[in-house]
């Protein structure tokens, strides 16, 4: 009697990269729109970005079915919060909720790599970065997904983030203007697309600021 080996995996990596950058009074969240499996492209037009609350947007890459389930769950929890507290959830609150939700499935994780971007309770940009089981941290900028290893070093160089170990604690928020940050995001994705096969097709950029939410698109290489 041999032990049955599973010949299917409950996980798949549908690829893609996400980036978020926090500014003094804005936040830029971006992700490509390619969805792949193995060496195949399933679709070139799939959004990885979802609005969780008025001031809170999440970009997630990884296993798409888990990402979808996570988005649905958070949206439902937000609705309940609105019914109970008669207000929208703030970004720091949503950040904690996401962390707890991910850890809840610590022993059968959501294969979802998330960046949360938005405006904190003072209107300053905030970015939270996560691993698949809910470990999170507030940072000035972050990238997750298949292209993150290509993107993060470049952002480190351009945004010159101060070490979080320094005392007194220095602000990680970039002094760049909103349009400069958007240009940086476009550059970074164009570069990642060159070398990461799972990143490409189209770039979706969401900007959150005092005026609300704006969305723009940019074409990326389709190969």
């Amino acid at each position, binding site marked *: *009697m*041999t*032990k*049955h*080996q*599973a*010949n*299917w*995996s*409950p*996980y*798949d990596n*549908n690829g893609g990269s996400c980036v978020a950058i926090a500014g003094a009074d804005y936040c830029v969240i971006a992700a490509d729109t390619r*969805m792949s*499996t193995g060496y*195949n*492209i*399933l*679709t070139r*037009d*799939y959004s990885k970005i979802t609005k969780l609350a008025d001031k809170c947007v999440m970009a997630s890459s990884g*296993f*798409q*079915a888990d990402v*979808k*389930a996570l988005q649905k769950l958070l949206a439902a929890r937000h609705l309940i919060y609105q019914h109970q507290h008669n207000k929208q959830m703030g970004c720091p609150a949503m950040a904690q909720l996401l962390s707890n939700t991910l850890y*809840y499935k610590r022993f*059968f994780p959501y294969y979802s790599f998330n960046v949360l971007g938005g405006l904190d309770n003072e209107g300053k940009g905030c970015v939270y970065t996560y691993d698949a089981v809910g470990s999170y941290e507030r940072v000035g900028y972050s990238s997750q997904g298949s292209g993150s290893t290509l993107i993060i070093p470049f952002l480190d160089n351009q945004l010159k983030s101060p070490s979080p170990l320094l005392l007194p604690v220095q602000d990680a928020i970039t002094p760049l203007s909103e349009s400069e940050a958007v240009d940086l995001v476009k550059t970074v994705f164009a570069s990642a697309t060159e070398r990461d096969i799972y990143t490409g097709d189209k770039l979706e950029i969401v900007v959150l600021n005092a005026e609300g939410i704006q969305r723009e698109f940019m074409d990326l290489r389709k190969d």
Partner: protein
Amino acid sequence: MEQKPFSRGLLSSEADSQRTLYPYVTGTSVVALKYKDGILMAADMGGSYGSTLRYKTVERMKSIGKHSLLGASGELSDFQEILRYLDELILYDNMWDDGNSLGPKEVHSYLTRVMYNRRNKFNPLWNSLVLGGVKNGQKYLGMVSMIGVNFEDDHVATGFGNHLARPILREEWHENLSFEDGVKLLEKCMRVLLYRDRSAVNKLQIAKITDEGVTVSQPYSLKTFWGFSAFSNPTAGAEGSW
């Protein structure tokens, strides 16, 4: 969110006969595209038992309610199970008797949840599903895999269709294809699949769904050509034992 404790581990060798381990009788690719009036979908009528082409008159596309068409590849018994789930869904929808009916988006969403849920319990329905439909003039075409990965697009394909048909569709699909052009394009994809997919059979149906309803064609065969001179003397130019 309930979680049952795993008492014996997920991959126990004891008679855990309730879990799907491998597919037995399978259907091969389904290909579908959006055209001017709605959705066109094609699938052959084969049901393979491993490497045996066991069944040759299997309908792998079925209409769901008034507005949707479901095509499936993978384990055929799981497809039949899904049709039973959908029968119940449509029944309850009809029982409301409120003039509203579930559209393709809703059915696709339901199927995604079902497939994902089964994957979470480590007992998947071993299918790749294509869901197409039109409701109030809005065309919809989506796909769900056995682990719950889902998306919608202007053209989709399952299995080998992803490798062989999708590139053709990417090159030649455009908005507002006429019915004749859509059928020609689908037949082109199915012909390539017939030549190159060993589990394909030369008996296929093409289904059309528009605002007026669903029509599934009678089974028919594609013309093939095997008279290449290279086939009559295969080793010419490269003598060898194979």
